[in-house]
């Protein structure tokens, strides 16, 4: 069977919508073409003829793209907010709160020097990060965010922490005397501790929500 999503995505390259909105359009058009194709096969047409039939149903790809761009463009900011920004914000808030809680109870030493020395797997907050990733991915999926959007929402706090590290590094470069107190390799090790491992933990939590699972809120009969 043809990869309809790939085909639609290829033809919709010039569709300038937010990522969630565009993914939703691609999903919808893909399943439509798949239905046409399967109906053709079900009527005894060859796969090649069914494929041709499905492509005929499209009409003009450029007209389709232009028409969708004109009608969906105003939805962009709302979709982005619901599918990406809100889950990202919740994730950042939740994971930051958990880090602070761990820190308050002495379970986390957030100093860069110590981050390089303490194996990150011993950091208890790593164990709760999958919950944060899962929460973000769940919220993004509920707002029809694509798999990519869900993944970004799930690991977004790590990106923020990595950015913070880079900013710190720039500050250290600007103030060599401050950098002198940080052992060599600390930043690299801290990058692993603050980005790679947390990202993996959040990704693990998000995994069950990254696939295209059905949303059976309501079953509607065809007949």
């Amino acid at each position: 069977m043809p990869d309809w999503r790939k085909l639609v995505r290829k033809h919709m390259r010039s569709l300038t919508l937010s990522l969630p909105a565009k993914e939703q359009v691609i999903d919808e058009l893909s399943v439509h073409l798949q239905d046409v194709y399967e109906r053709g096969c079900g009527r005894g047409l060859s796969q090649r003829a069914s494929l041709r039939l499905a492509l005929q149903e499209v009409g003009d790809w450029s007209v389709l793209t232009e028409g969708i761009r004109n009608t969906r463009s105003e939805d962009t900011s709302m979709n982005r907010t619901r599918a990406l920004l809100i889950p990202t914000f919740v994730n950042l808030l939740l994971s930051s709160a958990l880090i602070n809680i761990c820190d308050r109870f002495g379970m986390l030493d957030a100093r860069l020097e110590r981050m390089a020395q303490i194996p990150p797997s011993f950091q208890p907050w790593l164990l709760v990060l999958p919950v944060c990733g899962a929460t973000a991915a769940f919220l993004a999926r509920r707002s029809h965010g694509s798999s990519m959007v869900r993944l970004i929402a799930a690991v977004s706090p790590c990106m923020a922490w990595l950015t913070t590290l880079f900013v710190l590094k720039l500050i250290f470069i600007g103030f060599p005397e401050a950098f002198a107190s940080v052992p060599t390799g600390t930043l690299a090790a801290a990058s692993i501790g603050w980005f790679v491992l947390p990202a993996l933990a959040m990704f693990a939590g998000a995994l069950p929500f990254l696939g295209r699972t059905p949303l059976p809120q309501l079953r509607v009969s065809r007949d």
Partner: protein
Amino acid sequence: MPKRVRSNIARGSADLAILSLLAEKPLYGFEIARQIGERTGGALKFTLASLYPLLYEMEKRGWVEAQWQANAAGRDRRYYRLTRTGRRQLAPLRQEWRSFFHALDALAGVSHA
């Protein structure tokens, strides 16, 4: 016939066709196109290029609302449901087309038997 008039007629008939179908029950894009094709004996045919921009515009206007749901086969499809606003559009649209056909009938005798 000037192109603009022709496209307005096509657009108006498409609106009426879709809203009338959705007034019966929620449907997804493929089913809307299939049912319009079958119930008009193939006289009206929607391509994706003509159907989806129209559906999205109706959604933007609040005439229909869409939701991903599993169909009878357990597959996710984006179902369109007529809203109260959409339902309010339907009666005047029907009346408009009725008047249009009456006018054409009076002029050119085009009503069906």
